C-alpha cells in the first residue's frame, strides 16, 4: 500500500499553525526595519467636481509629519494609460490614477496621502489638510434611475452569446410565459484584512514591497511601469492574504501611494486603508436583468431572453459574464441575450467571487423556478426535464457534467421528495417554512503556470511559483500534489508562493489556481522524478538497472520495485551514490488548448435550501442548506469543503443582507462600515452540508481538478429566493430579501 498517497486526503492546512499562532505575516505586519513611516489616505468628501485649493501648511507644521502628497506635488510619472493597466483592468477605458489632476470622479476618491513618523500622527495630520472644491452636483448615480443612458460597451470581457433560433417567436408560441426583472445593488468585498502595502526602502531605490494582492507579479508590473523600476527594484511579496474575494485582483491605490512615498522620501512606508476606505474602490456592480421565458405546456423550455444592465464608472468599461448563463444551464433552442452598461459617478466595479456567474445564475434560476410553478411542475423535476446534454451556447460536448448526480444526491440528502408542492403549506408556529432549489455553475479553466522544484540529498523538496493563497488552501493542496507525485512524506515538502521573484503564475482568481498551479507542480515534480529514476538506474549494483518507470513506485521517499517491495532505493541513497546534492527543475505547464477547445468545461452544483420566514415580522432564517458539487477531482476534501461552506455563507449574505446603499442625492455609499454593511454573524448560519459528487475529467487538465473557489456561492441566492417563495407565496426579485419586502 502506498503511504504517500495524499491527493484526495483531508490533510490539515500546512500553514494552519502559523495562522492561528499569529506567525503568518500579512502585508501590514512586516515591521522588518526601524524607522518605518506611516501613510494615511485622505478620502474625498465630494463625489464629483474639482479641487480648487489645497492648504497643507498646518499638517506639515506638525513635528514628525514628513510630507503630504496631493495632485499639486506629484508629477513625472508614466503618462500613457497602458502603464496603469493591470492584468485585471477592463479592456476599454483609463484606469484611475491617484493624484493625476484636481478632478474628483467618485466619492471617497483618495486625494492626499500624509506620511508621518507614526500612524496616529499621520491620521491626525490628515484632518488638518484644508481642501476647497468646486462641486458638480449633476450626478449620475443609481442604475435603475439611469437606464436611459444604457449603451453597449466597446467590448465585453466575455462576448455575449449569439442569438439562436427565434426567441421572440418561440416565446409568442409558448403556452407558459414568464417575465421578471431581477435586481441586486452594489456589494463590496470587505475581506477581513484591509488593503495594505509596506514598502521597505533599500539603497538605489531598491524596494521590497509587501502588498495585499492576489497576484504579486501583477502588482510588480504595475509599479514597474508607473515608476520606471526594474524587476530588481520592485520585488513584491505576499505570503499570506487575509481574504480578498477579487478585491486583490487589481493593484489598489495604497500600493501606488506607498511606492510613491517611499521613492520620494527614500524611506520605508506603510499604508493601510481604513474599513471605511474599503468602500472606496471596486465592487460587485448593481445589476438589473430583464428575463423572459417561454415553455411548452408540458414544461419544456422554448425561449429564454435576458437583457442585462450593469453599472460602470465614467472612466472604465467594466463588464462580466452575466447573460450567457441563461443559455448554458438548460436545453433551450431559442435564446436572445443583450448586456448594456450605464456609466455612473462611482469607482469602476471589480470582480467579486463568481463575478457575473453569481448574478446571472441568480436571475435565470429564479426565473426558471417561477416558470416551473406556472407549469405546475416540481422545480427540481423541471430542471431535470430541461437538462442540457451539450453546451448549446458553444455547440460543444461537455468535458464532464455530473450535474444530474448533484440534483439526485442533493435531493436525497435534503429529503426533497417529502416536499409539499403547495406554497405556504409548511408552518411551525408563526414561521412559514419553504424549500427551494437552484443550479450553480462556474467555468473550469486552466492557465499557463511555471514552477520550480528543488530536491536535495536529504530528501527534502521545495516547490515554488508566484501564485498566492488567499485563504483557499493553496499551500496545502499544492504540497499534497508535490508529495504524492514524488512519493515523499508530506513533512518533507515545502511549497512556496507569493514572491514576484518566483516563476511566473497568473492572478489567483477564476477558480483556476488548483487546476493550473496544480498541473505545473505535478509536471515539475514528474521531471524531477524522471531525473531521479535515471540516476537510480545508474548507481552501482542498481536493482533498477534494467527497470522501466512502470516497474517501480515512488513512495515514502523511496523508489520501490512493484514486483518485490523489499527491493528499493531511498532518495538519499540515490543522490549520495550519484554524487548529486540537488536536483533542480523548472517547467511551464501549458493547457492543452487543442484538446480543451473541443469541449465545454464547467463545474456544477445543486443547492437545496430550507428557510423559515416569520409571517408577521418578515425575518428570514436559512435553517438548512445542502450543496452538492461536481468539481472534478477533489485534492483535499477538508479545504474543499471549507471553500464551499464559505461560498454558501456568502450566498446567504447576498440573498438576505448585503447591499451597499448609495445615497442618490450625494452619490455616496452611506453604510460604509461593518456596523451597517451587514454580513452574516454566527447566529445567522445553521446547518450546511456539502456533498462532492464523483466526477472524472481528463480533459480539463492533467490533474482532473476543476476548481472550487466560486461554485459554492453560485445559485445560493436563487435557492433562497425560491425557498422564500415556497414559504410565503411572495416573489421578491431584488436582493437582499430584507424583512420589509416580506411584511
Amino acid at each position: 500500500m502506498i503511504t504517500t498517497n495524499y491527493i484526495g486526503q483531508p490533510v490539515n492546512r500546512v500553514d494552519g499553525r502559523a495562522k492561528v499562532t499569529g506567525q503568518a505575516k500579512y502585508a501590514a505586519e512586516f515591521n522588518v526595519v526601524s524607522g518605518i513611516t506611516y501613510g494615511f489616505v485622505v478620502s474625498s468628501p465630494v463625489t464629483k467636481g474639482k479641487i480648487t485649493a489645497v492648504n497643507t501648511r498646518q499638517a506639515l507644521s506638525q513635528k514628525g509629519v514628513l510630507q503630504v502628497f496631493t495632485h499639486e506635488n506629484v508629477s513625472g510619472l508614466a503618462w500613457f494609460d497602458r502603464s496603469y493597466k493591470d492584468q485585471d483592468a477592463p479592456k476599454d477605458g483609463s484606469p484611475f490614477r491617484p493624484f493625476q489632476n484636481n478632478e474628483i470622479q467618485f466619492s471617497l476618491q483618495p486625494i492626499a496621502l500624509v506620511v508621518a513618523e507614526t500612524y496616529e500622527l499621520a491620521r491626525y495630520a490628515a484632518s488638518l489638510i484644508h481642501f476647497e472644491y468646486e462641486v458638480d452636483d449633476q450626478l449620475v448615480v443609481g442604475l435603475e434611475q439611469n437606464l436611459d443612458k444604457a449603451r453597449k460597451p466597446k467590448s465585453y470581457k466575455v462576448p455575449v452569446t449569439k442569438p439562436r433560433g427565434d426567441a421572440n417567436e418561440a416565446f409568442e408560441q409558448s403556452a407558459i410565459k414568464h417575465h421578471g426583472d431581477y435586481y441586486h445593488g452594489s456589494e463590496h468585498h470587505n475581506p477581513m484584512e484591509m488593503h495594505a502595502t509596506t514598502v521597505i526602502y533599500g539603497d538605489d531605490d531598491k524596494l521590497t514591497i509587501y502588498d495585499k494582492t492576489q497576484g504579486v507579479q501583477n502588482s510588480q508590473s504595475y509599479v514597474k511601469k508607473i515608476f520606471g523600476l526594474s524587476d530588481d527594484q520592485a520585488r513584491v511579496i505576499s505570503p499570506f492574504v487575509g481574504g480578498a474575494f477579487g478585491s486583490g485582483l487589481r493593484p489598489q491605490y495604497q500600493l501606488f501611494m506607498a511606492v510613491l512615498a517611499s521613492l520620494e522620501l527614500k524611506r520605508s512606508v506603510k499604508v493601510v486603508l481604513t474599513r471605511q476606505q474599503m468602500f472606496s474602490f471596486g465592487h460587485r456592480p448593481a445589476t438589473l436583468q430583464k428575463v423572459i421565458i417561454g415553455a411548452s405546456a408540458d414544461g419544456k423550455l422554448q425561449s429564454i431572453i435576458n437583457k442585462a444592465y450593469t453599472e460602470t464608472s465614467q472612466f472604465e468599461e467594466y463588464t462580466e459574464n452575466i447573460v450567457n448563463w441563461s443559455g448554458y444551464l438548460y436545453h433551450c433552442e431559442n435564446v436572445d441575450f443583450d448586456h448594456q452598461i450605464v456609466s455612473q459617478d462611482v469607482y469602476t466595479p471589480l470582480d467579486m467571487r463568481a463575478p457575473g456567474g453569481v448574478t446571472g445564475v441568480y436571475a435565470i434560476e429564479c426565473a426558471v423556478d417561477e416558470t416551473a410553478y406556472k407549469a405546475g411542475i416540481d422545480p427540481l423535476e423541471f430542471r431535470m426535464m430541461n437538462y442540457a446534454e451539450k453546451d448549446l451556447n458553444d455547440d460543444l460536448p461537455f468535458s464532464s457534467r455530473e450535474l444530474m448526480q448533484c440534483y439526485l444526491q442533493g435531493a436525497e440528502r435534503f429529503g426533497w421528495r417529502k416536499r409539499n408542492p403547495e406554497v405556504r403549506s409548511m408552518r411551525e408556529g408563526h414561521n412559514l417554512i419553504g424549500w427551494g432549489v437552484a443550479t450553480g455553475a462556474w467555468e473550469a479553466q486552466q492557465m499557463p503556470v511555471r514552477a520550480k522544484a528543488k530536491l536535495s540529498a536529504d530528501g527534502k523538496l521545495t516547490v515554488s511559483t508566484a501564485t498566492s493563497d488567499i485563504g483557499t488552501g493553496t499551500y496545502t493542496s499544492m504540497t499534497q500534489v508535490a508529495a504524492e507525485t514524488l512519493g515523499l512524506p508530506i513533512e518533507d515538502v515545502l511549497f512556496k508562493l507569493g514572491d514576484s521573484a518566483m516563476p511566473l503564475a497568473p492572478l489567483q482568481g477564476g477558480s483556476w489556481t488548483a487546476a493550473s498551479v496544480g498541473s505545473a507542480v505535478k509536471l515539475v515534480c514528474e521531471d524531477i522524478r524522471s531525473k531521479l529514476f535515471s540516476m537510480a538506474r545508474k548507481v552501482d549494483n542498481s536493482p533498477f538497472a534494467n527497470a522501466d518507470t512502470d516497474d517501480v513506485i515512488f513512495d515514502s521517499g523511496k523508489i520501490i520495485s512493484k514486483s518485490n517491495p523489499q527491493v528499493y532505493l531511498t532518495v538519499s541513497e540515490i543522490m549520495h551514490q550519484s554524487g548529486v546534492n540537488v536536483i533542480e527543475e523548472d517547467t511551464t505547464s501549458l493547457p492543452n488548448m487543442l484538446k480543451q477547445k473541443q469541449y465545454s468545461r464547467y463545474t456544477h452544483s445543486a443547492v437545496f435550501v430550507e428557510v423559515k420566514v416569520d409571517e408577521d415580522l418578515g425575518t428570514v432564517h436559512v435553517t438548512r442548506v445542502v450543496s452538492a458539487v461536481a468539481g472534478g477531482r477533489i485534492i483535499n476534501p477538508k479545504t474543499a469543503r471549507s471553500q464551499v461552506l464559505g461560498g454558501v455563507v456568502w450566498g446567504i449574505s447576498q440573498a438576505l443582507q448585503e447591499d451597499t446603499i448609495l445615497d442618490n442625492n450625494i452619490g455616496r455609499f452611506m453604510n460604509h462600515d461593518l456596523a451597517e454593511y451587514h454580513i452574516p454573524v454566527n447566529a445567522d448560519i445553521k446547518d450546511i452540508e456539502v456533498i462532492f459528487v464523483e466526477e472524472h475529467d481528463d480533459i480539463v487538465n492533467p490533474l482532473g481538478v476543476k476548481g472550487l473557489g466560486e461554485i459554492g456561492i453560485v445559485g445560493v441566492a436563487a435557492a433562497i429566493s425560491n425557498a422564500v417563495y415556497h414559504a410565503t407565496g411572495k416573489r421578491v426579485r431584488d436582493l437582499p430579501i430584507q424583512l420589509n419586502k416580506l411584511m
Partner: protein
Amino acid sequence: MNRFTFASVTDISTAIAELDEHDTPKYIAGGTNLLDLMKVNVEKPDHLIDISNLAFNQLEELPDGGLRLGALITNAETAWNKQVKTRYPLLSKAILSGASAQLRNMATNGGNLLQRTRCYYFYDTATPCNKREPGSGCSAIKGYNRIHAILGASEDCIATHPSDMCVALAALDAVVNVTGRDGDRSIPFANFHRLPGDRPDLDNTLGAGEIITSVDLPPNNFAQHFEYLKVRDRASYAFALVSVAVALEMDGNIMTKARIALGGVAHKPWRNTEAENLLTNQVAVMENFKKVADAITKDALGYGDNSFKIELAKRAVIRALMQAAGLEVQS
C-alpha cells in the same frame, strides 16, 4: 482622530475639576462608542478623563425593594447578575440582545445611556448633520433613512437612540442618578433622553459636567410576564429596526398593569402611557393588543425607506404582548 491628553481620576471632585482646565474635555469609561466616533472625527475631545476608577461600581439593594445599578458596572455584569436576572429579567434580555459579548464586557451602564445615534450621516463628516454640526441640515430626511425614526422626530433630525438596555429601563420606570457641580439629582428615565426638536445636538438632559452615578430600578411584579423583542436585519450584532420591551402584571388573564417601550423608532426610548393604559384591567387577547399597537403608532410618520417601520412596530408590539402574556412561546 485628533490629539488629546488623558487623565485618570479616582474621585468625583477631581473628575469635575478636570473639566475646567480644557476646551473640549470628555469623560471616558468603556469607550466602546466614544473611540469609534473619535476615529471618524465626529467626537474631537482635547482631553479624556478616565472615570472608570470612580466608585460607581456597586450593585446595591434599595430600602424600597428596588435595585441600584452602579454606572460603571459593565453591561455584561449587569445582565448576568443573579438579582437582575431573577427580579428584572426584561433588563437582562434587553442587554443581551445588544452588541456583542466583547462589547458588553467593556461597555458600562452609564455609557450605554450616553451612546450616540447610529445615523449614517451623523457618522460621516462629509455630510450635513444637525446633530453633529447644528444648523448644517439633516441629510437623512431626504436621503437613505431605513434605520431612522418614525415617532417624535423633527424636521431637523430623524435619528434614533440605538440602545436596547435603555428601552428596558424606560419600561421599568428606572431613575437615573447623577452628580455634578451643583450636587446630586435624580432624573426619571422618561425625562433623561430627549426628543430632537430644534436642538438635536442634545441627546439628553444631563447638565454640563454632570456624571451618571447609578440607575435605580424600582420594585415591580414584572418578572413573570415580560418580553424584549428585537427585530433587525440579522440574527445578532445589529441595531434594532424596531424593538419592544413589554412588562405586564397579570391577575389570571387580566392585565393589571402594562408597560410598553419601543426602541429604534425615536430619538429616545418611546413610551406612550396613554396607550399603555388601554390595557389596564383588560383581558390579554389579541384584540386588545391590536388596539394598543394602533394607539402607539397613531402619530407615526415614515420618511420613505423607513416607512415600513410603522407597520413593523405594530406587529412587534402585538407579538411582544402575546409572548409576555404567555399566549405565544417566547422567542
